[in-house]
């Protein structure tokens, strides 16, 4: 189990005064301090961990956010920023002595500018909310995490989230132009804007993926793109992971960059098929979903080329979608993957390491061996073009031994990812989940340097202080600052 820092006794003792102070800043409808209504905030997408916060504030304006932070700063109160709480790494897990600052009420689209292809929205707008706001005009916001119906753009920025289409369109960082942020001392700062590549230090890049540790994001300016003329998917199934992996290499080598290139192994195919009845080949060991974009003629041409490449690897099934409906059917299983696993196992942990794609067959084989030795089933679904793995480890949360084994299994997978030249997390963030594995990827002086940069923003370590970095004692923490 992950340890949280000890709550500050002086904060806990002053709980009523702190709540009263906050009630002077935000409307009463934006302040939660009673146990029943705090309950929904006790966890996030990593639901194995739970902790009730001291209070929840749901500011409605940037100025209110600034006032809340200033108040917390003056009173030495910790703050955990929160979007929709879908983090799979426990990034939004509260602390007993912390005020959760939620973005739920900051959900307005502020400006859509088609000539310049940018949109400015408040941090609490959902990912899909941006696309929905511009779709009628033929535009979209590219990064598309599977959680896009729920997760908020402020959360996406702080996790640098990706999606199935980021091989072509990039992750959040590559689609971001500007931020309005509030620092822990209540200063409101504009970073970037509607233009590209601000001169000076790349604060935008540093803040992206900073997991709520540097500042609270209240407004976000993103690039919006014109939707392609059309898109179509194909499905190719193979007799081994290795062959499917080689097919992925061949596709990339051909010069075609599909908009999506997804990989599922046998357990994942079976789980998804049982759930979605998508017509997946149950005799396959591995399957690719490949999507291309363009006019119908361009799609035909690209799919023809891709088919020819797949054919070189003796596929046991090759299905090119003939229509939008058929493409949707191919995607249906993949998009419902988490739900599908949820049906066959009471609980699962979703891992998120990235590996060099050339090491794929070896990594999948070793994950298989670990699965046998831990006695826990695992299904692998991942973004094949960029090597971002999502092994789903199935366990039973009612059995503490099972949970403990699942966590150890997960840690072993992530260590393996680093060992073969990859990293601990490709898109879900470190949060609390992978915090204690950070020394596997970084030397102590590198972690100290990263901590020092957090300290440059937040010298007192009040903003989301228990995440990303292994806990160290307060004396060492002060030294790092």
């Amino acid at each position: 189990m992950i340890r949280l820092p000890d709550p500050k006794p002086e904060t806990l003792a002053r709980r009523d005064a702190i709540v009263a102070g906050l009630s002077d800043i935000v409307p009463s409808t934006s302040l939660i301090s009673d146990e029943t209504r705090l309950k929904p905030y006790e966890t996030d997408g990593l639901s194995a961990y739970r902790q009730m916060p001291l209070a929840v504030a749901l500011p409605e304006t940037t100025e209110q956010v600034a006032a809340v932070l200033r108040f917390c700063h003056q009173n030495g109160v910790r703050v955990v920023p929160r979007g929709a709480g879908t983090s799979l790494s426990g990034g939004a897990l509260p602390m007993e002595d912390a005020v959760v600052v939620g973005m739920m009420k900051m959900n307005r689209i502020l400006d859509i500018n088609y000539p310049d292809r940018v949109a400015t929205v408040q941090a609490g707008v959902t990912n899909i909310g941006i696309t929905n706001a511009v779709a009628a005009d033929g535009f979209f916001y590219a990064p598309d995490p599977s959680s896009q119906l729920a997760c908020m753009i402020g959360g996406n920025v702080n996790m640098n989230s990706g999606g199935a289409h980021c091989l072509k369109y990039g992750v959040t960082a590559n689609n971001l132009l500007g931020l309005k942020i509030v620092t822990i001392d209540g200063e409101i700062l504009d970073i970037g804007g509607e233009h590209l590549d601000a001169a000076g230090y790349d604060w935008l890049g540093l803040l992206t993926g900073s997991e709520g540790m540097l500042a609270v994001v209240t407004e976000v300016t993103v690039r919006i793109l014109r939707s392609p003329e059309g898109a179509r998917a194909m499905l190719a199934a193979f007799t081994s992971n290795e062959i499917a992996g080689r097919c992925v290499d061949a596709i990339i080598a051909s010069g075609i960059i599909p908009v999506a290139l997804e990989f599922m192994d046998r357990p994942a195919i079976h789980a998804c098929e049982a759930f979605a009845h998508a017509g997946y080949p149950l005799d396959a060991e591995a399957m690719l979903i490949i999507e291309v974009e363009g006019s119908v003629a361009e799609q035909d041409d690209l799919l023809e080329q891709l088919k020819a490449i797949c054919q070189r690897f003796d596929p046991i099934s090759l299905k090119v979608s003939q229509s939008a409906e058929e493409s949707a059917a191919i995607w249906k299983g993949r998009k419902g993957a988490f739900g599908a696993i949820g049906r066959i196992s009471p609980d699962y942990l979703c891992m998120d390491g990235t590996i060099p794609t050339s090491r794929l067959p070896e990594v999948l084989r070793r994950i298989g061996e670990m699965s046998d030795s831990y006695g826990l089933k695992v299904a692998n679904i991942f973004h094949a073009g960029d090597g971002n793995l999502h092994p789903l480890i199935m366990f039973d949360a009612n059995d503490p031994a099972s949970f403990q084994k699942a966590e150890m299994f997960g840690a072993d997978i992530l260590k393996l990812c680093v060992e073969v030249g990859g990293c601990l997390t490709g898109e879900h963030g470190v949060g609390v989940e992978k915090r204690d594995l950070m020394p596997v990827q970084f030397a102590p002086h590198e972690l100290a340097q990263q901590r020092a940069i957090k300290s440059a923003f937040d010298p007192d370590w009040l903003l989301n202080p228990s995440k990303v970095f292994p806990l160290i004692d307060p004396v060492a923490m002060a030294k790092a600052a």
Partner: protein
Amino acid sequence: MTLALLPTDEAGVQDAVVSAAAAREPLWVHGNGTKSGMLRRVETARVLSTAGLSGITLYSPSELIISARAGTPIGEVEAALAEKGQQLTAEPPDLSRIFGANGRPQTIGGVTATNLSGPRRVAWGAMRDHVMGIRAVSGRGEVIHSGGRVLKNVTGLDLCKLFTGSHGTLGVITEVTLKVLPASATSATLVLPGLDAVTGVAALSAALGSPYGVSGAAWLPKGAGFDGPVGLVRIEDFAASVAYRTEKLRAELGIPGAEILDEASSRTIWKSVRDVLPLPLGDAVWRVSVRPSAGPGVLAAVAAAGIVGFLDWGGGLVWLSGPASAAAHRQVETATRTAEGTWMLLRGPDCLRSAVDVVPPEVPALAAITRRMKASLDPAGVLNPGRLYAGL
């Protein structure tokens, strides 16, 4: 007397930095010095070049990844990529016309440290978007790595972004790992004649807002090699797609006299835009970035001060050239502020560069964070002091 340091490995860079910090003797850190003339001049008794750290250390075409030591000439990287049909996506410019050629090639470390990107930036991202991993020696003499050799990585704070574009003020970059992409099979350019800056940018916006995957959109004034001002729109893809898309776009934009340039002419014109050749070379050169629709307004606002220019990135990148005076610089600053954008004084005599804000100053609250961040990486202040901001 200057002390010229030319280490051949990372440990040598560490030694140079540690000894500089111990002696409180700042370093002018650079690669081959091809862009020494940009921003503020750094005057130090010690000069540290990364040119001795050379060579590609990893290239895995099927993983879209290349790593090279900082001093590797960019041409060497580009040649290795071209052999496998790939390219540097951000299309970094060669600014030797602006800074004067010093006979040496620019290095991959220098291009990364300055985050300079060419026309393709508008569609496919800047240098900083493709830096997947970095190794740098901080002012403490420590080797700091961030990112790695995979395409997706959110592990810890993204120091790749912080080092990229930091002009050697936070760390001496020793090795860079970049995401690369296949080079397109072919390209073509639509030339849109007879458009002034405003109508030109409107056409570029329409093109960039089309589904046809435009990867370059520039506007050139009269006298840049065409009969009058023109809009230029590039499409790069497989041959059939390029043919189909340029025709569709020509029809949809409906601009009389629009012509399509073939691949060879298209390559020539975009290389020229990339390397800023259409800009008449004045004593001062600025690189301004604004929202695309504000580009023409910036051009108009500075014209009275004798400043001329052209537009790339759909109108958002404004290249300006004019007299090297504080008054001219003020005009550029004011026009850019009005457009809520950002500027960089790229070329100018030392006295001008030290007298004005070469980049927009940060507001006090952000400047305080900057000072603490800089102090954490370079406590003795030995790395390129004053390069971006006076006193930092």
